[in-house]
């Protein structure tokens, strides 16, 4: 005798503690079991792609800060790479190193937030979140030294970075790098063997490798499903081919794997930073460029491995001072494609952690 039940529609968001911003999901529930889900976007839509068509190439950099505001540096980086590819600009050696150090620091900061927020969604009452924020704070301090900003850095420029590292940067970075292993050990002690976390996240929201590829998932979400694909290795941009680092992957692609994946990636990033710190040469940090960049007509697509996945900029130039078209490939939006398949049949509490394990920023989804 089957119990007859009626579906029940719940609007999650746009204002909800776990939707990481103003994001809305229309969830159809059967009791507590998710039957269907429809993500609804657009609450933070600012039309950045349209705005970019009216700005000079340099003037777009501050806009990119506002995409994924958790990892602004990576956005700057991807955009500058795209313009450099379009205009054929060579970046000085030292600037490349600075960019890599900064981008990897940014990755550490963003992954820390992703992990912290995920654990918060699991219901850990802010403790892991604040632990992660404690470390992120130090990274933000470092960024403040180089750019004067703490959230929207606007640091990288086409052809380099806006200014050289200040003198106190390297000692502070070294201090941070010495502290980090201790912190990482602390998270592991707090969480990795936590029975409740394992019971909550293991086997939940499985995304198979095939599905992940078909849904164009990227970044930690893709790699946690066992696909060894990292743009830093597959299509090395900047100077990533000079560093020795591994691409960690997981096997099953459940929430716990995505969490582990992020932690492992943090370790690899720290490894890269350590190498870059040793190798960094001195020299200019910015290529000699005219005030207004006027790339030749054509198009270019540059993508980087941002903390959330493949962040790409597709620029079309008509040889004017503003791009004819600027398309942004947002990892957050595209990673969400698989959400519906991942959550069906799970409970509402699982929906929250599956959603949290994908790690999105609404600023990037809506643009």
């Amino acid at each position, binding site marked *: 005798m089957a119990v007859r039940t009626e579906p029940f529609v*719940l609007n999650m968001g746009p204002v909800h503690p776990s939707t990481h911003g103003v994001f809305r999901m229309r969830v159809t529930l059967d009791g507590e079991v998710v039957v269907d889900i429809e993500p609804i976007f657009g609450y933070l839509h600012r039309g950045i792609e349209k705005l970019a068509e009216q700005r000079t190439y340099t003037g777009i950099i501050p806009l990119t800060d506002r995409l994924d505001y958790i990892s602004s540096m990576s956005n700057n980086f991807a955009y500058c790479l795209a313009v450099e590819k379009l205009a054929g600009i060579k970046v000085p050696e030292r600037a490349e190193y600075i960019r890599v150090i900064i981008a990897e620091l940014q990755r550490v900061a963003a992954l820390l937030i992703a992990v912290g927020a995920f654990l918060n969604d699991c*219901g850990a009452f802010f403790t892991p979140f604040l632990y992660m924020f404690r470390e992120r704070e130090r990274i933000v301090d470092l960024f403040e030294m180089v750019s004067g900003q703490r959230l929207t850095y606007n640091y990288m420029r086409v052809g380099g970075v806006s200014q050289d590292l200040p003198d106190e940067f390297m000692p502070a970075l070294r201090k941070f790098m010495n502290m980090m292993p201790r912190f990482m050990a602390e998270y592991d002690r707090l969480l990795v063997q936590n029975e*409740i976390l*394992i*019971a909550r996240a*293991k086997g939940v929201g499985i995304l198979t490798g095939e599905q992940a590829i078909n849904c164009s998932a990227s970044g930690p979400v893709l790699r946690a499903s066992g696909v060894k694909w990292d743009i830093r290795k597959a299509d090395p941009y900047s100077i990533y081919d000079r560093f020795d680092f591994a691409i960690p992957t997981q096997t099953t692609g459940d929430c716990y794997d995505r969490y582990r994946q992020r932690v492992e990636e943090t370790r690899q990033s720290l490894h890269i930073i350590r190498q870059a710190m040793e190798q960094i040469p001195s020299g200019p940090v910015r290529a000699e460029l005219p005030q207004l960049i006027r790339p030749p007509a054509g198009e270019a697509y540059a993508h980087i491995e941002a903390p959330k996945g493949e962040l790409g900029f597709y620029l079309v130039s008509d040889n004017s001072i503003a791009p004819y078209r600027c398309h942004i490939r947002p990892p957050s939006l595209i990673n969400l494609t698989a959400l519906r398949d991942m959550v069906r049949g799970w*409970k509402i*509490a699982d929906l929250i952690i599956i959603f949290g394990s994908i790690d999105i920023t609404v600023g990037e989804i809506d643009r």
Partner: protein
Amino acid sequence: MATIELNIYNLVNFQSIPPDWPGGFWWHWLFFTVVIIGFVLTMVMGVIYIERRGMARMQSRLGPNRTGPFGLLQPVADAIKVLLKENIVPDAADKLIHWLAPVVAFAPALMIFAVVPFGNGVLLADLNVGILYVVAISSVSTVGIFMAGWGSSNKYSLLGAMRNVAAVVSYEIPLVLAIVGVVLISGSLSLNQMVVAQDVPFILLQPLGFLLFFAAGCAEINRSPFDLMEADSEIVAGFHTEYSGMKFAMFYLVEYAEAVAISAIIATLFLGGWRGPILPPWLWFVVKVIIVFFAMVWTRTTLPRIRIDQLMAFAWKFLFPMSLFNLFITALQVLAGWPTELVWAMIIVNFAVMAILVLVWSKLFFKLGRGRIEV
């Protein structure tokens, strides 16, 4: 007139009353009512302060430290703020039920203290069914939570209330069964008698019972990791999503009053209540309550939240069989007369039994799919 008073007095079966109490029964009643209300309100403020500061320390931040010395006045400031806020009632709400819910939820939390002894015989009513009264009364506050969940006509509230129903119905059973062990040893249902019987704190005689009671108690009053009736990351704030201002303050008060109540019951049942050397009894009692509460804060800051089906599985597949074992073993020991004669043997045996049972059963429990009930 005096005979009638005596009648009522007999009716509710007060066992002990301070013989030299001036004016007799009514004064006693009035005095303790005032004391209990004062005690609960002060303790609530105290534990809120402890929770916020303690949690802040554990999370490597400062916590409230601006209002008054060490931020001690923060709860007062919070209370004033929340009382001055606008009272918003949703348009579709069932107004009467929405209004009554916090009251219905608050009364039982306060009433529990009627039977909790602050010293030998220092309590409002030494009912000889004391612990039964506690369990009965605490189940009433669930009704208030339903009323809130239903009356708000908000889907999150309804979900929260439904989770609460499921949790309370399930956790009442291990909770009561864990108490039965204590009752068997002390041979009385009166809380005061239980404390008197505790020459050795029952946490030593009943370690497993203590664990079970602590877990089930946390679940009963929605403390982490069982706080999924008001899980803010899932269903916003559960049953009190739609409450604001004064009524929200009431629910906030209920939450902490219940936490204090459960801590007080644990302190009374397992930690020897008001008994202790040197310090006056009431201070011992307060200290023990705070220690228990602090343990709750600790679990709250450390553990993630479990899911609803895991919550149910935990109650039925872990706590319930364990509490049956505990009851059985205790009954055997009582039959053998251990609590009075071989106290130390009982302590050793019970700790060993607890360790073995918890270890073996957790392995078994995790074989049962980590508590997952397939959907």
